[in-house]
């Protein structure tokens, strides 16, 4: 049989299946991808450089923009790194609130993932449901922080304000509702033969290579490797929460989806536990005048677990009012570039956006 001609296709930056402002350049023979390379640079705004010109608290206006669907891990990671350099204590109640906020952020990000993952396989109904239901979680964020998408609620030294009146009751009712809805989602997605056939055996990450390739988050746990920052290096009140970290064998989209399916339920469980166990007390160990707040010279590396995987901040202070360097390592930096390039080879063109969604690619994390 004659060898088919190799064609180059550009998927993105403007394409309904791409997960942000990026482009995947694929070479195809027939329908099969023979080579893939990820191109970024469409949204570089030099966030890390801009942070160097802002003081320690002004940086928060930029931090939350590293990942729009899930900004809270960025705020927490930065705050923890600053606290470590300065040696600032966080009140116990604030730790519980932070853990709850992190899980709320994870949960609303799972809802977006449901939409992306199902939408990229043609199942649009679920996307409309989950994004609609996500608004109930955003309502909670609005009550708590004043903002629906960007919160800037977690600050060095704690959180900005205590829970509003009636928040616990409303949050628990919302969790009951979301939990019921997750069962409905399962019927639509996991019981659907189209999704099963498209997800199983597609986009496989070999489990023996996963760690070496730098895979993090749900894709790594989908390879059967139990790795999660929340249990590897428990932070805030995670050591007081009772939860499981699911793992699945296979390394394909199906395994990653199963991991997320269980993790969404675990998030609900952790939120309930935090609301239940939360001690009384202060929530904010107040920082000095922000315009004159100096942090002693030092370096710190902090990391947290987001939906996409490990988010790490390397923060350096030279003793002044401004950060010397803030390096952001988002989960998508490896998951979305080198790993995606490798697993796309041999796949069908139609699966590109399906695979990108399962890897949780978020371009602002790649080009900061």
């Amino acid at each position, binding site marked *: 049989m004659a060898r088919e001609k190799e064609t180059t296709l550009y998927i993105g930056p403007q394409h309904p299946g791409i997960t942000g402002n990026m482009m995947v350049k694929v070479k195809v023979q027939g329908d099969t991808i023979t080579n893939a390379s990820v191109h970024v640079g469409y949204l570089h705004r030099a966030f890390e450089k801009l942070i160097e010109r802002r003081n320690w608290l002004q940086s928060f206006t930029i931090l939350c923009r590293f990942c729009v669907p899930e900004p809270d891990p960025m705020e927490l990671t930065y705050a923890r790194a600053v606290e470590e350099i300065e040696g600032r204590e966080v009140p116990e109640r604030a730790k519980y609130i932070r853990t709850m906020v992190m899980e709320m952020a994870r949960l609303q990000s799972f809802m977006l993932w449901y939409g992306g993952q199902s939408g990229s396989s043609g199942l649009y109904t679920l996307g409309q449901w989950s994004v609609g239901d996500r608004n109930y979680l955003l309502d909670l964020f609005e009550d708590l922080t004043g903002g629906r998408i960007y919160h800037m609620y977690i600050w060095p030294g704690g959180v900005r304000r205590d829970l509003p009146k009636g928040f616990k009751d409303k949050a628990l009712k919302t969790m009951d509702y979301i939990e019921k809805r997750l069962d409905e989602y399962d019927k639509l997605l996991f019981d659907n033969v189209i999704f099963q056939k498209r997800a199983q055996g597609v986009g496989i990450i070999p489990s023996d290579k996963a*760690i*070496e390739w*730098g895979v993090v988050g749900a894709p790594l746990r989908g390879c059967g490797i139990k*790795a999660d920052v929340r249990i590897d290096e428990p932070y805030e009140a995670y050591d007081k929460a009772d939860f499981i970290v699911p793992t699945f064998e296979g390394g394909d989209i199906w395994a990653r989806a199963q991991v997320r399916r269980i993790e969404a339920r675990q998030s609900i469980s952790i939120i309930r536990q935090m609301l239940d166990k939360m001690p009384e007390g202060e929530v904010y160990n107040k920082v000095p005048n922000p315009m004159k707040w100096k942090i002693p010279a030092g*370096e710190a*590396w902090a990391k947290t677990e987001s939906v996409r995987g490990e988010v790490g901040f390397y923060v350096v202070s030279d003793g002044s009012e401004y950060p010397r360097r803030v*390096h952001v390592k988002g989960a998508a*930096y490896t998951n979305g570039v*080198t790993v995606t390039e490798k697993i796309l080879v041999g796949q069908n063109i139609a699966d590109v956006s399906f695979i990108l969604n399962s890897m949780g690619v978020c371009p602002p994390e790649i*080009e900061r």
Partner: protein
Amino acid sequence: MLEKEQKLLEILKSAFQVEGKVIRNRRVEIWDHKEMVPAILLMVKTQLGYKHLNHITCIDWLEEGKFQLVYTVFSHTDKLTLFVKTKIDRDPAIMPNIDDIWDQANTYERELREMYGIEFPGLVGDQEFILEDWDEMPPMRRDFKTDVYAEKTFFAQPGREDAQDVRETITKRSGEEIPEFAKKYSRD
């Protein structure tokens, strides 16, 4: 307490005569010359189980004329993070390449080449990673002035004359004093 951390430090000290310390639980740092970094990373990856490369970062110490490079690696078995740190000259900035140890180091190094102007001999991939058609000084260097570049490259959108600075306009119109904390500040 800190037994695992001390043990790791001792192994590295005896193998490479490096300087280092245990920062806190789960954090160990070592310092060495740049030529030794690939050997240390290869050893910790293949023999000690530090298979996960978290990131490579650069800090510009303009006053000293040095770049500090930090290689952060993590062991999924020991749950320890190791920082391998080195300082190199700013000019010429050359650092041994490690993308044969970890494939994903390639993107970090390409980014450092664009953003700091650090050369990695033997690095695969000539094309830019993020910055295309950039002719200026590598922008993440401390001596690259973003405000000067912005003024040179961009222009303010023409609009109402009084839309240029809201605070100044308010003072002009009403004669109201701007409080000290609300005035524009500068780093210099």
